[in-house]
């Protein structure tokens, strides 16, 4: 039993810290840490800065242009990039689709599509959820009917993140209604820049735009755009979700929030006295900090067990539930400690003149309400509890 990280991993942590300190534009970090959004151009710029190291595709093996990291290195990356306030990259393309194509794609798909992800030419979004298929994903209805060398695709995807800035979408589509629901689902790549594909924004609390509705009507998609075999999407989906299963801890981002919370606690409040003199507030902060420590070490425990060959149990669900809850608690504390200045709507501030509130406070309320999604998406907290209970009860 020990808490020691390998020298190689420790060296990577130092290298990452030094790199972020030197190369991460402060404005990008400020925006990311304050809950503000970066433009697509800014994302592409940050992407290009990481390219030299292969860190723009942190999950990819070396032969495809990535760093070839193992699970521990990937996790250190998540931790340090979150902590530094590094913008999250074109996550859907690089972390979700990229590894799927590398694992399941045809040589032609790999040759054509991977370079376009590496160069930021393609921005992908993920077409999974539908109006009648949220937590119950296997209930999805988008149809793909074979017609010669094409599929004809019709249906609606919902809650599609980044669809409004993407040119391509990978969809789970129903290619068969026979047999178990899961067995009739296929993984299909669809070009969005064609007639029949309509993206409508869905504004979430605080007038945030990150999710959309994507309607696809009688769109012809070549059969060569199928990933894996027809009806084989369920295993691909499990692989894809498995790649980000420890992401739900949000350890790096949560630590960055916790650092902000602690800093504001030590600052003077409106009465000219340090906020930490408010015993109830100080206690809440300390409890969230200990929650975060416990989550962090639970994540390391799962990682260390996996690396030593022990298969993960439902601890992964524990991490998903707690990661979301802790971020919600931290952003709530940030909003509350900002008091009146934390209540403003960032999209309804006066134009021109000096800022009414400090830039780092403008998005506090918006950010807090935006984080409600964490316990809803990616398998809601209730689904995670079902998973845990099934294991405890062997049912």
């Amino acid at each position: 039993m020990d808490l020691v990280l390998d020298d190689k991993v420790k060296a990577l942590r130092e290298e990452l810290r030094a790199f972020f300190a030197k190369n991460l534009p402060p404005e990008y970090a400020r925006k990311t840490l304050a809950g503000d959004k970066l433009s697509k151009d800014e994302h592409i710029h940050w992407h290009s800065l990481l390219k030299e190291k292969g860190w723009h595709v942190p999950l990819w093996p070396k032969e495809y242009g990535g760093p070839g990291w193992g699970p521990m290195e990937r996790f250190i990356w998540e931790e340090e990039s979150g902590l530094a306030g590094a913008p999250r990259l074109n996550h859907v393309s690089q972390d979700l689709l990229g590894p799927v194509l590398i694992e399941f794609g045809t040589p032609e798909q790999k040759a054509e599509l991977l370079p376009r992800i590496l160069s930021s030419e393609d921005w992908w979004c993920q077409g999974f959820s539908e109006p009648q298929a949220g937590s119950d994903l296997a209930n999805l209805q988008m149809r793909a009917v074979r017609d010669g060398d094409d599929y004809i695709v019709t249906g609606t995807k919902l809650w599609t993140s980044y669809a409004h800035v993407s040119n391509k979408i990978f969809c789970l589509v129903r290619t068969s209604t026979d047999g178990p629901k899961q067995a009739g689902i296929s993984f299909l790549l669809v070009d969005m820049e064609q007639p029949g594909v309509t993206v409508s924004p869905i504004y979430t609390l605080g007038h945030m735009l990150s999710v959309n509705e994507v309607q696809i009507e009688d769109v012809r998609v070549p059969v060569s755009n199928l990933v894996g075999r027809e009806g084989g999407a369920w295993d691909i989906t499990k692989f894809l979700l498995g790649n980000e299963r420890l992401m739900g801890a949000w350890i790096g981002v949560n630590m960055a929030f916790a650092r902000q919370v602690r800093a504001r606690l030590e600052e003077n409040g409106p009465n000219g006295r340090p906020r930490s003199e408010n015993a109830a507030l100080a206690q809440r902060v300390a409890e969230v900090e200990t929650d975060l420590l416990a989550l962090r070490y639970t994540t390391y425990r799962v990682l260390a067990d996996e690396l030593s060959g022990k298969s993960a149990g439902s601890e992964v669900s524990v991490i998903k539930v707690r990661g979301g809850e802790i971020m919600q608690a931290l952003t709530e504390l940030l909003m509350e400690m900002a008091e009146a200045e934390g209540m403003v709507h960032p999209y309804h501030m006066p134009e021109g003149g000096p800022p009414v509130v400090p830039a780092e406070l403008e998005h506090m309320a918006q950010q807090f309400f935006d984080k409600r999604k964490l316990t809803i998406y990616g398998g809601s907290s209730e689904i995670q509890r079902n998973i845990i209970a099934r294991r405890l009860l062997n049912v």
Partner: protein
Amino acid sequence: MDFNYDDNQRMLFDMVDRFLTDKHDLASREKLLKDPAAEAALWSEMAELGLIGAAFTEDQGGFANSSVDAMVVMERFGRHLVTQPYLYTAIIGGRLLIEGLAGDARDEAIASVIAGESQLALAAGSQHLLHSAQDTSFTAERDGAGWTVRGRMPVVLNGDRADRFIVAARTAGSVGERDGVTLFLVETDGEGVSRRSLRTIDAFGAAELVLENVALGDDAVLGPVDGGLPLVETALDYGIVAVCNEAIGSMEYLIPATAEYTRTRVQYGAPLSKFQVLQHRMADMYIQTQTAKSMALVAAMSLDGDPIERARMASAAKVQVGRSAKFVGYQAVQLHGGMGVSEELDIGHHYIRLNVINQLFGDTGFHSRRFGALAGPTTQLVTA
């Protein structure tokens, strides 16, 4: 990074588990509580097995490779609801001897503890359950070449079996000040020392301790005069991490026991385990236990390192474990229904002990404040 017991710790774990499975089911536990001679005999057997020595490293006269070994013992004690005073004699008392004595006096005192011949109790004073010795109500005054100690403490844990008390008395300054607390070794049979035995609600032994003008020499002083508080705090950090690991053993037993009960108990035509509201309750018990377990293990691994980090991790673990233990114990009882509150089942006994653990050595509120103070501007939450 590795959160699993190593081979030696695993062997220790298995040995303790086998021993307690044989000797310490609920029925034999009940008998022990009525039979002081049997309790003493069990303690001797534990000493022979080397369990007490597992709380001391080789250079201290014991067999431990690290402080984690004693935490392994405590984890199994939690599973088997052991009421033996390992925590008070071997871990807290032992640590005070290690830190406060030197030379032959230290070696002899530790040797008799390891042999199972000496029992210790910390009387840190005040109404608190063994934290904040700066609030002690014991006082000691210089009297020629020696000291006169007086005071009363209502509940001294393991006070019923101790042959030596470690008394925190104020020798300078006033209540609440960190300086001016001195530790004294007080023999139970000394003049002016009286005790009345009792048990706490979790069936552990304790005593009221009254010291009436007890005359002590300088050789009874443990650690520096007026500087005893840091020793108590160090010893209690070991005690905190010990009860955290004890609680993990208890909680990791309660979850499958509760799951099994809900699978077999049929109401309204279905096993209780079919009701989603109960499934989610058990999932929450699991979530609470897993996060607490990570902190208990991290705190165990931090014991032998930097003292500030040890204290920080001990407090963080105590906050997590305290909250988790109360929740898991409470829900285990609730899901067992009437059986949960019956003394015939071990479930309720675990619940009681978990609640006492939350109170011991400072509760969640106390330790979140302490963690907050240690995590303040000078110390980063984030370490490598």
